């Protein structure tokens, strides 16, 4: 059994991507990996905080890192945005001593201190590099061969360069899909942006980015997409009908969290994986597997 501190992030905790949180826990149990939720964690502040108030953004993350440091395990998050924000806080505190002094002072006001020892990891990194493909293959119970999947990484798991996969043409998720028995299709736009939170303030612009992603996935023969970020999944899934309406297209591509795909291959209960919360239903694609 391997232990980690777990930082679900707001969407995967009790928010719009709760199925990501459920399937993460379900899959990690199968893989003898214990994700212990960080007590009383706070929102990382994401892009809005780091855009408007740099120091407070660092302090929001530093509180979480300080709480995790007391436990001593790596801090794992399934959310790409939390991953970038927490990681860059670590980097900034190392790189800018004068900023670290200010963050230390603020933390002290809350009775906390942080010494910079927590390693921040994305869940996909932990599953593919710590658990590894061999144990994953040994847990596969259901044949998903022939299922054509577009592996969608989005931006922030690979950029800025955090050293865990190639910043533009990552491969880890492709390899995971292959090891589960599925077929990753070539997907040139695999790490292009889904529009992120601008889907709320500048919808037209984000829908255009989404249309390009669906186009690329479908024209390469994908029957569904698999992703690893709560915001990417919500944009691709909940706004797919808006894309169809705006561009007069007929996409009907289910969008699964990679943990949901793993759970399906492991033969876990679909309810436990939260498949009922997926808006573009995956049933038709999955029915073929039975």
């Amino acid at each position, binding site marked *: 059994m391997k232990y980690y501190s777990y930082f679900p992030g707001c969407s995967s905790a009790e928010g719009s991507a709760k199925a990501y949180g459920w399937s993460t826990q379900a899959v990690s149990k199968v893989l003898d990996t214990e994700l212990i939720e960080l007590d009383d964690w706070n929102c990382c502040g994401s892009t809005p905080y780091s855009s408007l108030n740099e120091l407070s953004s660092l302090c929001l993350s530093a509180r979480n890192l300080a709480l995790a440091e007391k436990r001593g395990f790596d801090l794992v998050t399934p959310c790409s945005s939390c991953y970038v924000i927490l990681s860059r806080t670590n980097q900034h505190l190392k790189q800018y001593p004068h900023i670290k002094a200010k963050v230390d002072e603020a933390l002290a006001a809350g*009775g906390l201190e942080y010494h910079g020892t927590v390693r921040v990891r994305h869940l996909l990194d932990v599953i593919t590099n710590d658990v590894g493909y061999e144990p994953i293959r040994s847990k596969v119970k259901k044949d998903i061969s022939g299922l054509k999947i577009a592996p969608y990484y989005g931006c922030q798991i690979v950029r800025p360069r955090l050293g865990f996969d190639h910043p533009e043409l990552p491969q880890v998720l492709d390899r995971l899909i292959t090891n589960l028995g599925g077929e990753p299709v070539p997907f040139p736009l695999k790490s292009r942006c889904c529009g992120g939170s601008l889907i709320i303030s500048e919808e037209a*612009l984000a829908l255009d980015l989404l249309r390009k992603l669906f186009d690329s996935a479908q024209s390469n023969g994908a029957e569904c997409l698999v992703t690893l970020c709560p915001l990417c999944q919500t944009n691709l899934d909940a706004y797919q009908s808006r894309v169809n309406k705006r561009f007069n297209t007929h996409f009907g591509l289910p969008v699964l969290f990679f943990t949901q795909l793993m759970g399906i291959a492991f033969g876990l209960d679909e309810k436990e994986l939260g498949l009922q919360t*997926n*808006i573009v239903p995956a049933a038709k694609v999955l029915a073929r597997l039975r």
Partner: protein
Amino acid sequence: METRIRSDTFVDEISAIPGGEGIRLCIQCGTCTASCPNADRMQHTPSQLIAMARAGLRDEVLASDAPWYCLSCYLCTVRCPRGIKQTDIMHALESLAARSGKSNRRTLTPAMYRSFNHYVRSTGNLPELWFMARFYLSTNPLRAFSLMPVALSLLGHGRLSFKTRKLTPEGVRQLKAILDKAESPGGAP
């Protein structure tokens, strides 16, 4: 050999924000602009913004809608041959624009960010439904109607809740103490 660096207040301001210091290294090759998914929507391209900032055009840069169209996808940052962190520079410009108090009427993104930060600041958590409601009410409530189908399908699939996760009262107090200190005079970098 001693190198003298020209002192520009605006460039100094940007350089003082972590990640902004690379602005002096730009060679105007345009790689960032060519990589940006949104460059064609921006009033000024990323490389233009840098050139303008270095020319000291503070008001023009801070009034530009360009930084608000940054998706934080970091493609420019990983491709820049000079190792400049353009995404961080965009964030630096957003924070300086916000601090200058000028509102930007060309984009709703500042209002969206403010709504997001309001909840994070006061609760330590992001209640997605309330965050969106606050944003639409503060900008264009009528737009909320056109988005009803999306909201309803999220609600129908159990993905938006009225109830939200809460920190413990001690956690809320601790976070408030930390942020109050960070935002006290002399706090902001």
